[in-house]
């Protein structure tokens, strides 16, 4: 199957270095301390934040910083073939652990000693790039909750198909297992890499290209996220001024 046509279009009509339609919105839930919903193409994720609050589990209290409790789940109907469980499988647990580490390095954890922040991200529809969507949604929800962070964390996937790099890989493209899949998350201002995960084989010679493309994708996503956060703050300010 041609993933990129000779005319330079991917199966869904995008060019190789274009991201999918990216939409996001902050404050979608009323009871959570912070929440955000985002769509990267047909991948849809909802993130909610509770806290910082007093740590529930005594064993997890840390005296110098906040404990981050990250939960990743996928709605049973989110994938094309129905899943049996939304969470608790090995992969979700693995991702939750990974995500906890990622956000620990961006949240200013020492501001809230002895407390806990709950981050819960749920994938409502999965069409590739689930981890990326998860990271982006969680970042926005943290913004909504007003949790101080070093920077945004923006994430994007990239792959190498017939020596061409493509970014923001969707599910039908991901299904070609032999192509490498890089999930990347960066702090956009410093361009520091905070997550770099590779599936399948890629020779080190091509790492630079694929990394470059991935970073570009992250920065494109950052532009949109940043704009949305500013909008949200402006709207909130307008409401406050009006009352």
């Amino acid at each position, binding site marked *: 199957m041609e993933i990129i046509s000779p005319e330079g279009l991917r199966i869904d009509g*995008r060019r190789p270095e274009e991201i999918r339609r990216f939409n996001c919105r902050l404050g979608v839930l009323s009871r959570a301390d912070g929440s955000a919903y985002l769509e990267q193409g047909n991948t849809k994720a909802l993130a909610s934040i509770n806290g910082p609050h007093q740590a529930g589990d005594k064993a997890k209290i840390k005296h110098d910083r906040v404990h981050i409790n990250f939960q990743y789940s996928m709605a049973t109907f989110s994938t094309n073939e129905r899943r049996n469980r939304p969470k608790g499988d090995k992969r979700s647990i693995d991702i939750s652990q990974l995500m906890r580490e990622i956000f620990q390095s961006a949240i200013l954890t020492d501001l809230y000693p002895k407390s806990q922040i709950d981050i819960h991200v749920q994938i409502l529809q999965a069409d590739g790039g689930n981890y990326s969507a998860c990271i982006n949604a969680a970042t926005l929800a943290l913004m909504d909750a007003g949790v101080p962070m070093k920077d945004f964390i923006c994430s994007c996937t990239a792959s190498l198909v017939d020596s061409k790099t493509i970014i923001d890989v969707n599910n039908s493209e991901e299904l070609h297992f032999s192509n490498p899949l890089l999930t990347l998350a960066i702090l956009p201002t410093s361009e520091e890499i905070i997550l770099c995960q590779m599936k399948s084989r890629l020779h080190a010679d091509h790492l630079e290209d694929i990394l470059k493309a991935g970073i570009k994708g992250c920065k494109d996503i950052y532009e949109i996220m940043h704009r949305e956060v500013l909008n949200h703050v402006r709207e909130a300010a307008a409401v406050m001024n009006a009352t």
Partner: protein
Amino acid sequence: MLKSRTFVKKTRKGGVVKVVQEHYLRDDVWCGVIGCSSCNTTQAVLDPQCLNVQSNLCPKSHFIIPDTNVVCKQIDILEENCIKHAIFLQTVLQEVKHLSASTYRRIRDAIANPEKKFYVFSNEHHKKTYIERGKDESPNDRNDRAIRVAAKWYQKHMQDNCFQTDIVLLTNDVENKEKAVQDNLTTYTMYEYVMALTDSPELMDKLSGDFEDDEKNQIVFAEYLPLSKIQSAIKAGRLIQGTFQSSRDNYKEGFVRVHGEEQDIFIKDLDSINRAIQDDVVAVEMLPKQEWTKPSGLVCRDVENNENDNAETAGLENTAREEKLENYIADALPSGKVVGIIKRNWRPYCGILLPNPNPNARRFLFRAADRRIPRIRILTRQSSNLLGQRIIVSVDAWQRKRRYPEGHFVRRLGPIGDKETESEVLLIEHNVPYQQFSQAVLNDLPTLPWEITDDDAKQREDLRHLTICSIDPPGCTDIDDALHLTALENGNYEVGVHIADVSHFIRPGTAIDIEAANRGTTVYLAEKRIDMVPELLSSNLCSLRSNVDRFAFSCIWELSPDADVIAARFTKSIIKSQAAFTYAEAQLIIDDKQRNDDIAISLRSLNVLAQALNKKRLDQGALSLASPEIRFQVDSETHDPLELVKKELRETNSLVEEFMLLANITVAERIYEIFPQCALLRRHPSPPLSNFDILLKSAAVKNIQLQVDSAKMLSTSLAQADLQDNPYFNTLLRILVTRCMMQAVYFCSGTLAYQDYCHYGLATPIYTHFTSPIRRYSDIIVHRLLAISIGADKTYPDLMKKDKVQELCNHLNFRHKMAQYAQRSSVSLYAQLFFRNRVTKEEGYILFVRKNAIQVLIPKYGIENTIFLRSADGSELPFIHDEQNLSLTYQDITLQVFDRVLVEIAVEHNEIQGSKIRLQLLEPQVCSFSV
């Protein structure tokens, strides 16, 4: 803008799953017209001022938009030089791809040719031309509508941008045409369009016709099952899928090869073959056991005359005679009949037009050079120009009521019997790409004078001080290997094999790389070679000629005096060969005891080591097999064959061979170690025991018992097999053994388990090709892998992917097989030219005995041919076939396998099909033969 595509598909578990995919619509899909003010024209190819064809219908400049059916059926016309400036819609290409992969490849090639000015318009992703499927609209209707919408958009777009160019939709579909006319689109059928081209009347012949059924014709063949039924039936195991292989000997018989099954399914009679043509993927229904039969053993060719239409209505003349003859249910083969076609694998065929007695006839029968292909009916107005010529014809369809498939004329090659023409025929028939290298390929060549830069020198080991020499056949200009030997102080030897560093010049992904990969191998014909890489590389920069600096990839061992490998290393190097010897020259030096210079000493040591290596190999069970190899001494002016030369074998041949084998094995081990998943290796599967049946049977006739359980046992028992009265017997046996072997093939290491890597013939657990990168693409890949393993080169993605490497292997295997066939055909073509004006008596041996013919090998000329046992008036002689003793008996004459016979070799001239070599039996004399 965003649309989503939703479809439901079956899962592997038999369930269904709803799949939703995004579908983006863009506003940056450009029209591709040069000078368009509203589009980005950097990639534009369509020239609005063009007037490429003279046409009565479309006098103005115009662009054509062919629909799917036109592309699929009339690809030959679209490939014609005079057809330019066409727009191909994404919808059309997607449908074509789905319908026929080979047509898709051809149209993609045409689009890639900048001369053609073909443009692809991604209408499915264009905001204004994307349409959604309506309620109650079939997918086909939706696509037809999409094509009309896109054509309409183009029409408007041209007007909006003040172009005078017309848009012409080409469709053969009546309904589609009607609707297009309603939409005010200029629409023609392909027939109308081509008819109106005043300056290219010859295109008419290339039109693929529409074949309406003649009512008068009786139904000849059973109807095919629909594809959907076939698929479910195959899944349920009621039908079997396989590839149809027509018998070379009898056009009324064939086999269906089922993937993964050792036993082919036998198909008897035209009724059961049911319009399947060589290589078609078919669905077969097995016959009940009591109806199973086996090949008749007869050699049968289809009628040679151009039969009139009445003959068609007569139905299929199933040979009742042979059926009555015997009752051979005893060892019947699993038999079946073709009930459906899964995929046609038709290609353009070379062949000749059969003359039609009616002088005004326009319908002719065409006979393909490949005798497994049935006659093809074509319509032509220029028969007088085509008779006596080699032509190419494509098949369009095979109607149920037709005895033969219908096709159309594609191209004329030249007169029958002409050396050039016949050579081209055999190249085309074996799918050998033989065109001149394109400019893009030549652009990738280094410029002359080529010099070694300091950078190059830095990255390479300088081995110019070594005494390196090469040994090749006389006249060889593509020298890809050279050797050296240095005695070490510890009593061991340092031996180096230096291989031309082709991968230095051919970088992955370049035009020259793609071309070389496609060619796969250099093809050696009797009078010329078809190079894999341009001559500048093959005969100059990569050729390790003497006394010039050349880049090499060196494999250097430390060998003990017993030829045990102590250590091995690989390096990219610069070498300077001291001498380029022929085998004979090298042999002379070795034998000349007076010579004691460096070269002579090292050659002698190499020779000793090679003999040690050879002995080791034979001890492990490597086979040494015979196949008569002959070469023609060709007149340098006329290229006519002057003399037949049998290839002589000297010690030095074996010297070079042993070290090349050692290099290949050492490299294979190395790349497998570094790239266990994606190393390109070569294996030679051990043949299934059933392959040896004919060999054992033949040997048993002469009371010789052969052991075939392992390569070692086979080679031992072969060595002992000798007959007092037949000095050539052993060689004949070895020839038969080669016929029992499997093909050696390239494969990707990740696709098989290690124990399957073994090379049966060479008796080595792992093997690859490293030593001839100038003439084999596989070696280039191996060079790249090896270079990466020593850090001298970089990877690229396709090299690291198991499936891509395997894909390449399959392609190379195909090319190698075809190159071999082409080589053989070329030799027999030259044999024919050689015997054209002489009649020779020669002794031959019977290799195989058939029911009505014997197959005779003439060792002197390497000719193998069938002799039909016919009397002078053409009737068959009542020979009695003894299957057990493999003999034919008539009166007091007995012909048995391995028998020596005396034959007359002559070239038989035939008006229709040109000349061919014909053997006549002189001894033993059958009275009625000797006319």
